[in-house]
C-alpha cells in the first residue's frame, strides 16, 4: 500500500463513520475544530482505524496525541512500517 492509498483508506473510513465532507479532509484539518468531532468520537475513531488496517491501537498512548488528519496519517504510516519490519 502506498502513501496515497493509505490516505484514501483513512479518509474514506472516517468520512463514512462520521459523515464528513471529503472536501474538508485535508492533512491540516483539526479533527475537533474543523471536522466537528469530539471526545465521544475517540472510541469510534480507534475502532474505525483498527478495522481499516487490522491492527490494535486502543492501548497506544500516541492515539491520545492525535489532533489533525495529518497526525492520523503519520501515526498509521508508523504502525504499518512497524508491522512490515516485524
Amino acid at each position: 500500500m502506498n502513501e496515497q492509498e493509505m490516505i484514501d483508506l483513512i479518509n474514506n473510513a472516517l468520512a463514512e463513520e462520521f459523515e464528513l465532507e471529503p472536501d474538508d479532509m485535508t492533512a491540516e484539518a483539526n479533527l475537533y475544530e474543523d471536522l466537528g468531532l469530539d471526545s465521544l468520537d475517540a472510541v469510534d475513531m480507534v475502532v474505525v482505524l483498527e478495522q481499516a488496517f487490522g491492527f490494535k491501537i486502543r492501548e497506544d498512548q500516541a492515539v491520545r496525541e492525535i489532533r489533525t488528519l495529518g497526525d492520523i496519517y503519520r501515526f498509521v504510516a508508523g504502525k504499518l512500517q512497524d508491522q512490515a519490519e516485524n
Partner: protein
Amino acid sequence: MRETASQPYKAKTVTGLSLGALLMTMTAYPLMIGWTLLGILLFPLLFAGWYYFTGWPTAKIVRHFIWLYGRGWLLLMRPFVRFRFDGKDVEGRNWQEPAIFVVNHCSFFDTYCMGLLPVFDIAFAVRSWPFKMWWYRRFMLLARYLNVEDDSWEDISAKGRKVLDAGGNLLFFPEGHRSRDGKLQRFYNGAFRMAVESGRPVVPLCLTGTGELLPPERWWMQPTHITMRVLAPVDPAGFEGDDTVRSLRIEVKKRMSEALAEGDR
C-alpha cells in the same frame, strides 16, 4: 454509503413572540421552578416511604421519581401543549423487556417528555453538562445515569449492562446534542454499541414539536403539539460482520428519519 433520507426531516421553527407564547412563558417557568423545588424538598420523605413499601433499590426508586417529575411537568404544560403518545401497541414491543431507547433531540425539554413513556425504570445516557446542574446532579447520580462524556467506554458499558440486567432500560440521544437547525444530525455509536454488546433491542422514539416549544438559543416557550412516536424495536442480532454497530446505527437512523419526515407531512 452516506446516511441520507429521501425526504429529510426538519423541525418547524417559530420566530415571533406571540401573546400565547408570552402568557405561556410567564406562567410555565414559575410553575416549573415551583414543581422542581417541591420535588427536591419532598424527595427525602417520599424516598423513605417508597423504600419502606416497595423495597426497591435506590436507583430504581429515584428513576421512578424522575419519571413522576416528568409526568408532573406534562400536566403543568397541558394548558399550552397538546401531547400525544403513539406507540402503546407497537408490533414486537414488550414494554416489560429491557431495551435501549434512542430519541431525536431538538430541545432541553425532550428529557421531560420521557414521562410520556409507559415505563419509568430508565437510566439516561447524557453528556457531562447536565451533571453540573446542582439541582438535578444528586438525582442523576442516585439514578445511576451514564456520563458518556467523562467516563470511559468500559465504565459506561459496565454500568449500562447492570441497569439492563436488573430489568431497567437505557435512553440515549444518539445525536449527542440538540439540533441547531431542526434537522436530524449524525448519530454517535454509543447506543448501538451498547445494543450489540448487551444483545438488547434498540427502540427508536421520534419526538416532534419540542423544537417549537423551546429550541436551543431561545428562552421563551411556544404553545405547540408534541408527539412521541415509538417505532418497532430493532434487534441487533439481525446485523452481522465487522460493521455491526455501524450497520445497526445506519438502519435505526434511516427508520427514524423516514418516520420523522412522514410525521411532519
